[in-house]
Every structure is written in C-alpha cells, then in structure tokens.
C-alpha cells in the first residue's frame, strides 16, 4: 500500500552510529580535507548548457556531489497584478529535491536562497533591455553537496547567457569556510556543517566588480582580505571554464 507523504513523521532513516560525533581532526595541524583536496583548491567544475529544451535557456552544473539545474524562461509577460515598469523584472526561485540532502527533506522552496540569488544576479543583467517583461530564473538543487548557493549563482548566469539575456558580464560565485585558522575554499557539506563562519562572493570577473558579498562569523581584517582575494581568484578561473563552455556550445550549434 502506498502511503501519503503526510505520514512522514512516523518514519525515520536509519543512522550509522559510528558517524555520530563531529570529527576532532579539524583542529589538528596536519589535517587533510575529506576529499583530500588542498585548502585553497576548488572541486573540479563541470558545466553544460541546454539541459532543458522547453526553457529559453538552461544550464547544468556539477561540483563534486553538488548538482544543480537552472532554467531561464522569458522575457515574458509580467504577472497581471504587476505595476507598469519601464525596466525588466527578474524573478528567482531555488528549490531542493526531497533526496538532495542526506536525510530526506520535504523538497521545499528556499526563500532565503531565492532572494540572495536575485540580489546576486540583479546587478549584472541589463534590465533596460526587456522593459515591461519578466525573466524567470528557476533553480533545482538535485543533490546538495555543499556550497550550493555559489554553484546555483554561477550556473544561473550561464543559463541567462544561454537564453540570450543581455548581461554586463557572467556572474561567478565562490565561497570560503573558516575553520579555526584555516580558510577552506569551496567547502563540502561536511565542512560547512562544522565551520566557524563563511564568506561568499559573487562577482563579475572581467569588470572586477562584486555583485554580492556575504560574511558570517568572526573574521579578522587580514584574514578577511585573504579570503576575499582567494575567492576573487577562484571566480576568475571559474569564469574561464564557463566561457569555454559557452564557446563550445556556440561552435557546436554552428556546425
């Protein structure tokens, strides 16, 4: 018999008793990251445009276990209730699948992330180029493996480019977690869960402009500038990967 999802509270996923405690190795000096990366080394990034045919533009991004799809619809008619506006509107939404997280979730919308995605992209899009209409940017996190929001932001700007929406530059985003004295770039879920704080930058690398900067937790001034520089460098490299992905797609379309 199939049960309605409303009865989820009575079920539980079996836990592994050996993995309960927070690993103490994070404080050791010769500690290595769970995926044996260097502290200042990002996960290999994979991008592909045109993941969803029914959308105006779309992109798929995979950073380790973090997998997201972003679809862009429009520019299309704004909702009837909207007031007249001589610049275009941007509408963003991020949702998670129920199996994205290690413990089964409810697949709910993520309001906070949605508004952060909006703020990160807003500054890069030439809204004047589509007056009176709306561009919808919808993201689905297929699997959450850490640094979800930065991956979604980068992937969304690629999807916007695929949809032919005018932008000043691609937006790339990278985050850094600090654990004690260490700065870890592009943290995975496990590292994020025990971080002391984090810094996320969304920027337009060619213009060297930052569209969004979020810092949480306590961070000293020299550490802050080091973390920012680390992120900006990684953003510039990410932009190269994204650009080559767009070029590949364009040359494949020509043939």
């Amino acid at each position: 018999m199939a049960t309605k999802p409303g009865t989820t509270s009575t079920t539980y996923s079996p836990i592994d008793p050996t993995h309960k405690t927070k690993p103490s190795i994070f404080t050791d000096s010769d500690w290595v990251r769970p995926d044996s990366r260097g502290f200042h080394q990002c996960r290999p990034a994979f991008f592909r445009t045109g993941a969803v045919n029914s959308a105006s533009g779309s992109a798929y991004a995979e950073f380790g276990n973090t997998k997201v799809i972003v679809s862009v619809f429009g520019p299309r008619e704004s909702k009837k209730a909207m007031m007249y506006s001589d610049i275009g509107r941007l509408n963003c939404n991020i949702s998670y699948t129920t199996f994205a997280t290690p413990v089964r979730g409810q697949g709910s919308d993520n309001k906070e992330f949605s508004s952060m995605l909006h703020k990160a992209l807003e500054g890069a899009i030439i809204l004047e180029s589509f007056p009176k209409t709306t561009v919808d940017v919808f993201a689905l996190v297929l699997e959450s493996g850490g640094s979800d929001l930065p991956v979604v932001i980068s992937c969304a700007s690629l999807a916007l480019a695929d949809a032919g929406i005018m932008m000043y530059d691609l937006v790339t985003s990278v985050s850094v977690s600090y654990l004690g004295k260490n700065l870890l770039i592009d943290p995975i879920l496990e590292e994020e869960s025990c971080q002391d704080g984090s810094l996320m930058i969304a920027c337009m690398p060619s213009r060297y402009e930052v569209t969004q900067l979020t810092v949480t937790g306590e961070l000293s001034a020299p550490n802050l500038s080091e973390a920012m520089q680390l992120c900006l460098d990684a953003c510039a490299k990410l932009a190269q990967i994204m650009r080559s992905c767009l070029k590949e797609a364009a040359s494949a379309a020509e043939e």
Partner: protein
Amino acid sequence: MELPNAYEDLSSEMEVDAFRRLFPLRYFERHLTESIRPDARPLRKARDTTIALGAVASADGSALAKIGSTTMLAAIKMEVMTPSLESPDEGCIAIDFHMPPICSPNVRPGRPAEAAPVLSKQLSDTITSSSMINLKELSLVSGKAAWIAYLDIYCLDADGALFDAALLSAAAAFSHLQIPVVSLDSDGKIVIMSEEQKEKISETKPDNKEKRKLTLSTIPFSLTCILYKSYILADPTAEEESIMETLVTVVLDSSGQLVSLYKPGGSVLIYTSAVQVNLLFPPYIVMALEICRDLYHSCRCCFVIFDINIHA
C-alpha cells in the same frame, strides 16, 4: 456567399513558423496526410530512449530516464516505519511525482502543476497493481519494523509522454535500489550496521553482508499514443499533446500482460461507444498495444545491459 478558407489562402505566403503557431491543427494535418510528423518521425515511432542508473549519490537507488527530450529523475530513499496491524510483515512504497518550475514554461513556483498529482496517483496505482515489488521483501522485524521506500520522481524537462518516462525511471530506480544492511540496536531502533558487525556476521551468514537488491517479478512498461481521426501517433511531444487531446496510455508488464489502460477524456469516447466495443479493445488500441510490445523489447535490452554493468 461562401467564406474564403483562411488558412488555404494564407498558407502559401506565410512563413512555416507563423503557420505552425497560428493554425497548429492544420499544420499537423498536413503532415499526417504524408504519414510523417513535424520532427521527421513516422507516426508510430517512439523517440530515442535512454536510461542511466545511479544518478543520485545521496539516494539508495536512482535512475535518469530520457525519452526524446522528456527527462525524469527518480530516486528512492529507504526509511524505517512501523508496519500496520493488518499487514505486519509488509513494507510499503510511497510514490510522489514532482513538476518543479524548471521543467516547463507553464509551471510557476508556488502554483504546482495540475498534472503532477494526477500522474502521482497513476504511477502509484500502476506500480502497486503490477505486483512488480513483493512488499514482504521490505519487512525487517515482523510487526515491529519495515522499510518504507520513498520514491520521488522529478520531471526535469517536460516534452510529452510524461507518464511513460516517469514509469520507466521508477522501474529503473527500483532495479538499481540497494537496501542498506541494518541491525536492531538495544533501544529497538534500526541502525546502519558498522563494518565490524558486518565482519562478525559474515563469518556465520556470508550472504547477509552485502547490500540486498529487490527481486522485480515483472517490470511494467507503458506507451502513450495520440488518437486523432484515424491516425495513431506513438509517443507524442508536448506540442502534439496540446493540439490533439485524445490520449491513450497502455501499460504492459514484462510478460506482455495488460496492467492498465488510461484514456482521460477526449473526443474518441463517442466513437467507441458508437462501435459498441464488442471486442475487448477497439482496433486502434490493439495496434497501440502492438507498438508497445515492440518498444518493450528494445527497452528490456536497456535493462539487461545495465544489469550486466552492475554485476561486472
């Protein structure tokens, strides 16, 4: 005075795209008389189908199925529940179908697509009634604990024949499902078995060490067809579905038995009642069944290939 036939006059001077948007039915009829479809398929040919197993690492079983550009991602998460009093040694399956806003321009966040709950129910009915899964295999401790398999299917790209793709991904996800090895702890809770425990047990019962797979007795497989006038169009795209509304979905299992047949509304209903349905099915449904059987063979090849990959 006779009115001039609008499309006849315009079709010669209009661009193809404009004609397609303004007179979609006419546009399709023109193709149908030539026994071809706008995407260059013959009427009874389905689109290319691919299945990839294990697409989601965080799930116990998962599969990505593509029919043409219709894409479905199915993933199963296993949780523990207390079985009901009526069936103390049976687990259960909870199936949910989602259409996130990314999949189609017609779905907006906060307003779930109408089709999603309908398909959810259809899938759930089909999978339970096809006896693909023996629920007794999901039992852990009789009357105390059993597995509940949460199967969530996400439509990543909606381009017609959603049910077919969803069912395919669901069956593939079950074929990929690996049930974790668990044990009962002192509090009566089910926990994942640690490596040492596994080794201890493997000395006495060697077959209990590895993750278990479900035995799928039959695999249900479906085909959606459009019935329009005397034409049958197999595996329709979203555009075809929106123009010609009479759909028939036939579900067969691996032995060729009919599992279910859906015909949600549409104009052909009048026609079927007119011919009195003295056969069990009208001839066009029999034909649809035949196409479905052919397709099933190609699809089973997919499953066989993947099985080899898993065991190798």
